[in-house]
């Protein structure tokens, strides 16, 4: 299935396209069904803008959570409020997508309105008018220009390093494999101990889920919200 995504279209657009390609309605069930396709898309499309990848991962995490609830309902006795909210959010996003099509049509309808041209002559009897502002002096101007320069300066640099820090799911998977190379298990809390952001925790969790899917590990959680133990997938002869 070919699905293409424009820059800045974002994860919800991708999700809707996947759901629509399968001709499904937006329900918790269809969201759960789409989770794998969504993750695969992110993995295979290396050209997703690095600045957007975190947004995609947040949605991937939500989908995987919804999927795991659908597969293992006994692990989640509480009502699935989050999934309902997410479902609502997608529906709402879809409504705005429809509205955007209408707006596009209006724009193409050539009903443009034009304001009146501006000239000094249309305002003033004598064009040579000069009306100085009492609050402008040479020193004020210099001060304001310094402000402008200061505002222009730092903006760019900040973004860059945050992006570098952001986190590659493959790295997390290798990290988990390394941990398991020497021993049979580790605790999830140790795995994310050095995580610097919520996103990194989510990516860590995704990595573990991915390993579970590939039958490399199993997860055991003895109590609700308890510690998760990640074990090597038992080899059965």
């Amino acid at each position, binding site marked *: 299935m070919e699905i293409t995504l*424009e*820059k*800045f*279209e*974002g*994860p*919800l*657009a991708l999700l809707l396209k996947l759901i629509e390609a399968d001709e499904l309605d937006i329900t918790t069930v269809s969201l759960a069904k789409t989770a794998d396709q969504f993750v695969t898309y992110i993995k295979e499309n290396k050209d997703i803008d*690095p*600045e*957007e*990848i*975190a*947004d995609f991962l*947040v*949605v991937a995490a939500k989908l995987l959570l919804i999927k795991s609830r659908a597969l293992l309902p006994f692990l989640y006795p509480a009502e699935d*409020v989050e999934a309902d*909210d997410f479902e*609502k*959010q997608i*529906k*709402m*996003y879809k*409504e*705005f*997508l429809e*509205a*955007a099509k*209408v*707006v*596009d049509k*209006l*724009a193409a*309808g*050539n*009903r*443009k*309105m*034009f*304001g*009146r*041209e*501006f000239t000094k002559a*249309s*305002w003033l009897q004598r064009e040579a008018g000069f009306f100085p502002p009492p609050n402008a002096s040479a020193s004020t101007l210099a001060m304001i220009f310094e402000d402008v320069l200061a505002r222009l300066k730092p903006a760019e640099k*900040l*973004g860059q390093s*945050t*992006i570098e820090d*952001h986190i590659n799911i493959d790295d997390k998977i290798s990290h988990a494999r390394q941990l398991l190379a020497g021993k049979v298990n580790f605790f999830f809390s140790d795995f994310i101990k050095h995580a610097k*952001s*919520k*996103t990194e925790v989510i990516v860590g969790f995704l990595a573990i889920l991915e390993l579970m899917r590939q039958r490399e590990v199993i997860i055991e959680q003895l109590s609700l919200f308890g510690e998760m133990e990640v074990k090597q997938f038992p080899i059965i002869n």
Partner: protein
Amino acid sequence: MDLKHKLEALLFVSAKPMAVKQLAEFTEAAEEEVREACHELTVDYKDSGRGMTLIENGGKFQMVTAPEAADTVAKMVKVETSGELSRPSLEALTIIAYRGPISKTDLDRIRGVNCSLIIRNLLLRGLIEAKEGSEDDGTHYNVSFDFLKFLGLGSVEDLPDFARLHMDTTVDEALADEEPLENPVI
């Protein structure tokens, strides 16, 4: 000269959006009277199929050419070739039109993706305007008069289905329930 036609003269000369408050000051009338007279004028224009009309946005009015005159006027006015809107920009613009004033955080949440660059471009293009809020309220965005002129709308309320999408409770619920995004990147 009656209020309505004084306002007509002011809106004609100003050649830009004028705040009701200022119009009231210049005509020495109450703001409510001004608003009413502007609405009457709009209806007059429409009823007699005139070449102009008034559009309204955020407590301001502007006199512009009627949408039906678009083809004729376009022959005279150099239409700025600013290029098409990309799909993501159109989407963001639509959300701002229906839900404005809206904060960047809420826009990001509805679209599920960081909209910084899109907002920047829409601001540069003059299709949206930023309004600085109080400290904890932050900047909010609204569509501009240029947006209305671009589509040929009298106000955002003339957008199809405006009432429902503007008020849509699912939006508010979804936004209220959502944990604050920790602004992942940028």
